[in-house]
C-alpha cells in the first residue's frame, strides 16, 4: 500500500530550486524545474554526500554544490562521465498539493 504524505504546496518551492523535507531517514530534496515538474531525491550526492538541494537546477538535473557532479532528477543517476546514483522518491501532484510516498523511505530503514 502506498502511503502518500503531504509535504506542502508547489508554490513553496521556487522554480529552478529545491526545498528540503526532514524525515527520520534523512533529508529529502524536493525540486521544481522551470517547467513545474517536481522530483524528490535523497539530499545526498553519491560522490561526497553534498546537499543536492543547495545546487543549481537546470533542465531536469541538479549540479551538486560541493564538486559539481550533475545528477538527473528523473533517475537519480549521475550524468556525464561520473558514476553513481541517489535514491529517487515517488512524488504526486494533486492540484497545488505535493505528496511523497513515505514507505519508500521506511522500507529503506527496515
Amino acid at each position, binding site marked *: 500500500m502506498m502511503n502518500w504524505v503531504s*509535504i506542502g504546496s508547489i508554490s513553496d*518551492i521556487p522554480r529552478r530550486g529545491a526545498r528540503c523535507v526532514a*524525515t527520520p531517514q534523512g533529508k529529502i530534496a*524536493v525540486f521544481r524545474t522551470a517547467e513545474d515538474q517536481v522530483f524528490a531525491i535523497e539530499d545526498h550526492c553519491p560522490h561526497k554526500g553534498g546537499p543536492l538541494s*543547495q545546487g*543549481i537546477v*537546470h533542465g531536469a538535473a541538479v549540479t551538486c*554544490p*560541493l564538486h559539481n557532479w550533475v545528477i538527473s532528477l528523473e533517475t537519480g543517476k549521475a550524468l556525464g562521465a561520473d558514476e553513481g546514483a541517489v535514491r529517487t522518491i515517488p512524488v504526486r501532484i494533486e492540484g497545488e498539493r505535493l505528496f511523497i510516498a513515505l514507505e519508500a523511505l521506511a522500507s529503506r530503514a527496515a
Partner: protein
Amino acid sequence: MTEKLVIIGNGMAPGRMLEHLLKKAPGRYQVTIFNAEPRVNYDRIMLSPVLSGEKAYEEIIIHGDGWYIKHGITLYKGHKIVAIDRQAKTVTSDHGVTEPYDKLVIATGSVPFIIPVPGHNLPGVLTYRDLDDVRAMMLAAQSRAKAVVIGGGLLGLEAAAGLNAQGMDVTVLHVMPTLMERQLDPAAGYLLQRAVEERGIKVITKANTQAITGNGKVEQVELADGTIIPATLVVMAVGIRPNAAVAKEAGIAVNRGIVVDAGMRSNDPDIYALGECAEVSGQVYGLVAPLYEMARVTASQLAGDEAAAFVHSDTPTKLKVTGIELFSLGDFAEGDDRQEIVLRDASAGVYKRLVLKDDRIIGTVLYGETADGAWFNDLKKKQTDISEMRDTLIFGQSYQGGASLDPMAAVAALPDDAEICGCNGVCKGKITGAITAKGLTSLDDVRAQTKASASCGSCTGLVEKLMVLTIGDKYNPAAVQPMCGCTTLGHDEVRRLIKAKGLKTIPAVMQELEWTTSCGCAKCRPALNYYLVCDWPDEYADDYQSRFINERVHANIQKDGTYSVVPRMWGGVTNAAELRAIADVVDKFEIPMVKVTGGQRIDMLGIRKEDLPAVWADLGQAGFVSGHAYAKGLRTVKTCVGSDWCRFGTQDSTGFGVRIEKFMWGSWTPAKVKMAVSGCPRNCAEATCKDVGVICVDSGYEIHFAGAAGLDIKGTEVLGLVKTEDEALEHIVALTQMYREQGRYLERIYKWAKRIGIAEIKRQIMDDGEKRRAYFDRFVFSQKFAQVDPWSERVSGKDKHEFRPMASVGFAQAAE
C-alpha cells in the same frame, strides 16, 4: 640432442637467467641447479620488509616448487658444491651427488664480510645475507633486548630499521663520519642520520669496534675509545665480497671475483659466472639491475647469441626503509672540473644535489623527495646537455616548461605514470589512454572523463599539451573556448552581444543567442547572471536560482553541509563591543570553530543553515553586515596601522582602507577581489600580492594591481603614483569597473590584465581622464543598487524559504 646445463647457486641472477633462457632456447638444455640454501628462489631485496614484519617469506618467493617441476628443472636444495672437475666436466656436492655438465654457470653470490675482532664468533653475532639470518634476527628480537648493528651502509640501516620495527633497542655503529658515505654526500648523510634517530635508533659514527665480549654469548660491544654498548645481538653488515672459492680451487681465473669477459664467460669456455661472484672489466656488482643485465647476457650466450655483451651502467641506490626517501646515483665527489647544483629545503627535509661535468649530469643525490630520480637518471644515461635548463634543472622535470626548452618535448618525455593532476591523482597514461580510447577532442571532455584539470586547473596547460601530443591538429587550443556545453559562443562574444542586442534577462540571452539547452547549466547560468547584473544594474532582477549556493544564502557552504559566517570588519579594525557580540553568538549557537582569516576578520564555522538568519540578526544588532566572504565581489581591504600609530607610516593607510571598503562593498565582480593598503614600503599589509593594492609613500599613493597569491603567485604591476587619497580612490574604482565590464566570469584580475595588456589598462586608467571618470561614474551608479546588506534583508524575511525545511514527515511514526 639436449645439452646438460648445471647451475651452482639459485639466487635472483640465475633465476632471471633461466627465465630468459627458457624463452630464447626452450628445450635446448637439461637444467640442474645446486642451491646451498635449502629453498627455492626468492627476492633477496625484500628481506628487509620481511625483517620489519611488513611482508612474509611466502610473499617474496619468485619461483615456487611448481615452477621447477613445470620446466623439468632438477633442484638440489641444501646442496653445496664442493668441487668442480673441469677435465671430467662434473660437479660434486657436499652430500656426494656428482653431476656431469656440458655448460656450467657459477652463481655463488657473495659472502658477508666479518670484521675479525675478538669475539666475532660468539653466539649472537649474525650477518645479514639470507633468510636464515633474517629468521635468526627475528627470533632474537622477541627478547625486545638491545641490538648493535655494525655498519651504517644500505644493508646495516635496513637491518637496524627492521630490528627497531620488531621492538629492539638498536644502536648503529659506523666507522665513517657520515652514514652511507659511498652513496651519499655528507649533507644527505646528516639528514639520513637525523631521520634514523627520529625513529629511536641510536647512531654512533666514527665508531671503531674493538671487541665483542660476553660469557659464552654476546653481552657487549667495546669501541676503541672505551665506549661500552650492552647488546644481546650483534649484526655485522659491513660489506660483502664475491664468493669465488670453489671456482678458484678449480683453477678458474679469480681476481676479486670470478673473472669473466663481456659475454660472462670465464677463462674456461664452458664455464660462465654471473651475479655478485662475477667480475667484469674489473668491477663487481651488488645491486640488482646490473645483475639482471648479466642474466640477460648469459642467457643469450647460452642460447647461441655470441654478440650479447654486458655494458656497465651506474645504478641508482634506494634505501628500503619505509618513510625515508633517498636516491643516489653515479659519481658525486667534488673536483675542479665539476660544478654542482644544490637545493635545500630545511623545513620540508629536502636536499638535492646534482654534480655536473661539461654540462652533463654525472652524479645525483636526492633526499626527502625522489620523484625526479628517474628523470635525472635518464639525463645522465643519455648524456643530455643540460646547459639550456641549468637554472631550473634542480627543480625537476615538471619545472622544465620555460621558453628555452621545448615544453612539448618535456611533456612527451614524461613517463606514463607521471602525475599530471595532483588534485585528482591522475597520471599521464590515464589521460592519453582516455583521449585515444574514447576519441576525446576537447578539454572539457578530458576533464569529464579523467577529472584531470577539473579541480584547481593549474595543470590545464599540461593536459592541453597531452591532447596535442595525442591527437595533434584535432585539438586546437587557439579556438575560442565556448562558455560551456550549452553554446558555441565564448565569454567575450556573449558579453558583447548582451550589450549590442540589449539582452536583459537570462531567457532572452538564451533565446537570442541560440542556447542548445532549455535553461542552461551550472556553468553558464551564474556567468550570465553576473554579466546582466553588471551591465544593467538598475533594470536586471538578480536571478537567485542562477547563483551558486554561497551567494544565494550569503554564507560559505562547508564539506558537511554546514555554513561559515564572516562579518565585515572594515579595514580589519574592530572593538570590544564587536568582539563581545561575536563571543555571544558563538556561545548562543554553539559554533564549533572560530578562526581569524587571512583577510583580517573573524570566521565562524559549522553553523546550521536553519540558524543563519538568527545568527545574522544577533550580529546585526552589534552593527555587523555581511563580509561577502562567499562572493565573487569585493572581499576585504587589508590594512596596516599607518601614520596614526606606526613610526614609519607615511599616510593614514587604515583610514584609507576603511574608506575604500565602505565605498566598494557589495559590488559584484567576475571573480573575488581582495585589496590591501600599506602605510609605507615595508608593506606590512602585503599589498603587492593583492588584486588591487596601495603602497603609501611620502609623496602620495602608489597603486598596484594584478597580483596573485593562490593557485599562482605573482607580484603586482604598478598602475601609477597619485598625490591624494581622493585621486587614489578614483583610480582604484575606475580600474575595478573596467575589470567588471571586461572580465570573464571567474577570471581574476591578474588573468584579465594579462589578456588585455598592462599597457592598455594604464592607458585607459592613468592617461585618459575622461575614460577614468566614466568608469568611476558607472561604478557609483551600480553601487546604488548593490549596497544593500544581504544579511539584514534576510533577517527581515527575504528568501525565508531558503532557511527552513519545507516539511517534517514520518517522525511521529518512528517515535511510536
